[in-house]
């Protein structure tokens, strides 16, 4: 029981690590790494939710239909759930565009302040 839960707990651990990096780190680049860890923790959780195996210890089956439509039921019963995989693909693309934007912001901020230290970028009161 505990062992089968381990991957899920690991995903939540990653989530917490990402949040910690964002909240506690002063270096902007480390904050960006934190954002990416956070993003990938959510992706990992999604993939884990789609994981199925045909039985205890059996290898997972890729959701690819071989043969005719008569095999659909058998495949659906044994294969990994393809839906979360499709979601993760989309989520990775979103994560990439957010990362590109935040890196662009970081470069501009470095040009303005000459530092990546977020403590020294405090014009606004928040």
């Amino acid at each position, binding site marked *: 029981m505990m062992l089968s839960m381990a991957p899920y707990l690991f995903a939540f651990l990653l989530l917490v690590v990402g949040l910690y990096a964002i909240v506690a780190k002063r270096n902007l680049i480390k904050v960006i790494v934190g954002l990416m860890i956070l993003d990938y923790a*959510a992706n990992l959780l999604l993939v884990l939710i789609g994981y199925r195996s045909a039985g205890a210890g059996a290898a997972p089956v890729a959701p690819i239909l071989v043969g005719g439509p008569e095999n659909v039921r058998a495949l659906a019963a044994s294969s990994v759930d393809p839906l979360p995989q499709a979601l993760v693909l989309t989520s990775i693309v979103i994560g990439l565009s957010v990362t590109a934007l935040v890196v662009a912001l970081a470069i501009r901020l470095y040009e303005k302040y000459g530092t990546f230290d977020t403590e020294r970028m405090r014009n606004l009161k928040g």
Partner: protein
Amino acid sequence: MEHLVPLLVALPLAGGFLMPIVGRLTKSHRAAAALPIAIACAGLAIAISLLGRPDETIVYWLGGWSFPIGISMVVDGLSRLILIIIAAISLLALVFSMDYMKHYTSPGLYYGLFLLMLTGMNGVVVSGDLFNMFVFLEIAGIASYALVAFGTEADELEASLKYLVLGVIASTFILVGIALTYNVTGHLNWAKVAEVLGTAGGAGLSLPMYVVAALFFMGFGLKAAMVPFHAWLPDAHPSAPAPISAMLSGVLIKACGVYVLARLVFSVFGGDQTMGVILAGLGATSMVVGVLMAVGQWDFKRLLAYHSISQMGYVVLALGAAAVMRANGVSDAVVGLAIFGGLFHLANHAIFKSLLFLCSGSIEYATGTRQLKMLGGVGKRMPVTGACLRVAALSISGVPPFNGFWSKLIIILALVLAGYYTLAAITVVVSFLTLLSFAKVQRYVLGGDPSEAARGAREAPVGMCLATVVLAVLCLATALVIFPTVRARLVDPAVRVLSVRVSEDRPAAAGPAVAREGMGR
């Protein structure tokens, strides 16, 4: 009719990617604005034409693929109301941008991002399933992070970074919530999720679903800037160019925050007492903290941003109180009244808050400052903008006969009828503090002799005046919604979507048609 629905997403999306090319062809903001304005007009026309059949749930399956595989777009009474608000405000903000954005470079990129933000908001409102809603949420989010940084000065970049970091945290919570929802129910379609959860039969949520609800509350609370998740808003909204501030405060926090939250709580999770109390608590805290922070502000746009937090608190409080009332067996009429008050205030806030931000933009355009202490006598130098600002200030402070008065009155009335006297009292006090803080705006911006900054000020250009005057007229015109004939078309269908009794033997209101079609295949 239903074939018009995907156009709400497709037109601005196509326009968004065309705009950088248009921007290469012309450097003029007026010329570049033509395409986005045409698209916004088309959006408004579609949104109005959808009003034709007020109580019908329109379901459109993209590409003709049906239930388990296809992507659905669902438009019901609540979506119609929000779509109209989005279309109207974005059209006026674009008209305003034509003249206001003259001082900025790269019009192509500006309008491109604007249209992408519009795509995202329309998409969130029409999505029939959770994951597409998430994708559109991110489109709107990324476009708005970039728009906040559009000035590329130190302050704008810093505000954008703060907005982006908190926005990504919110999105991650929402994505984890969606993943867990899929794990528990095996579905992503709103109506199917509600069906599997059994909230339509009056069943409460299981423990894992409460965890999911908590994740969604955090995520959308951040997106809607409810206190204590509000820290990004007072930085991000003032830093954007004025038309974008108007869009962010007027529409984005509603479409991407409060709308989705209301839909989840009422239509999917069944809106039980716990959630109602949490919503009402968030709303009341936002209301009080927002207004207290606003009173002490000397930066005009920052003051307006804090009022956004406070006024959205009214909406969330009304919706939360409605859920609590429903759980406690208060009569349907009072529950309906509270929801009506909340949605009416949401529409009104979209109008007067975007008007306030556009006026602040006009004043900054003419005087070059938005510090209250450096302004003064603007009312004499800019009569049209000054009059519009007065109308908006009276609306937001709840002075009759403007729209803000009626919606606040209805919320307070519903709270009193249900016996929540403390909440009603808080609402009245917050309304008074709002009046106080706008008296300050009147005194420092409009009243007195022209200050040094205001001496050379001239009335804003035609496009900007046009947008503000139309919004000022709308502030008066939407007061008509209290009359039954207008209400029956516009707000009542939206109220029915949220107030439908979960114990009735029909699937949850997120789209009965979706559920039915799903069964048949």
